[in-house]
């Protein structure tokens, strides 16, 4: 029975769980925005634009949530995952 083998196996599994969590953050945020848009469609003024002013057409809260989720997923997560992998490789 070698306790070292167990600790060696645990560390990468924990990192993978963290990577999965970070990867899921963006899509979950975008999903929350999409669900919000479906539940309260009247909050997307673009669906009924007639007679609306600039700000009512420009600022659409559910769409903003989706944009934040997608921005986080495509702009921030890829580099972060690469750095996590690099950090894991150097700590081995």
């Amino acid at each position, binding site marked *: 029975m070698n306790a070292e083998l167990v600790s060696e196996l645990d560390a990468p599994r924990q990192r993978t769980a963290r990577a999965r969590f970070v990867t899921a953050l963006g899509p979950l945020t975008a999903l929350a925005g999409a669900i919000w848009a479906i539940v309260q469609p009247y909050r997307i003024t673009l669906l009924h634009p007639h007679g609306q002013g600039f700000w009512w057409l420009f600022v659409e809260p559910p769409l903003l949530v989706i944009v934040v989720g997608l921005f986080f997923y495509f702009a921030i997560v890829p580099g972060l995952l690469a*750095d996590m992998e690099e950090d894991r490789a150097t700590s081995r």
Partner: protein
Amino acid sequence: MQPPAEHVHWLFATGFLLLGLCLLAEAVVGTEVWRQRAWRAYLWPGLAFGLGVFMWPVMTFFTNSTIHMIAHGAWAEVLMAAGAVELALVRGKIHSPWWQLAMAAALAVSGSALLVHEQNAWFFQRSSFLHHLLGWTVLVAAVVPLVRCVRPRSQVAATAFALTFIFIAVSLYCDRDVAPVFGHISPLAGPPHR
């Protein structure tokens, strides 16, 4: 071209949501990994500083009352100060974890300003209720940076800090003019707005 107050809240909510996601990711992956790229290290302090800068136009153009102007001005100052301190910490110009007290002060002042400048105790009205909810939440959340002074590497404190900003974002997104929040408890709530 001046946006309605609720739209300003929604735009700030978007900034706070991005801030919260970044802080949550940093709490999960660890500060060392998060700061491996310079732009990522400066993202959170830069956003905090930027939100402080954008508070000045809010103070200038939304002059409902003197207390509104004072509250928004105080917010702008403390957000910019806290952002600047975080920038200096990331840059390595200052090192002591006690500089986190600047963020604790920022949250305490922000919470107090939220409570003070919402003078209506109309809890049936959405924006009034949310100001009180946000005020007390932010005031209590000022404890989190205090904990981070004592335990800078605490993952629980880092996660709580991130979730505070996500909660602020959700609350700000809920802000809608004079819409009722608890149904038509009072006739003063008026007709429901979208």
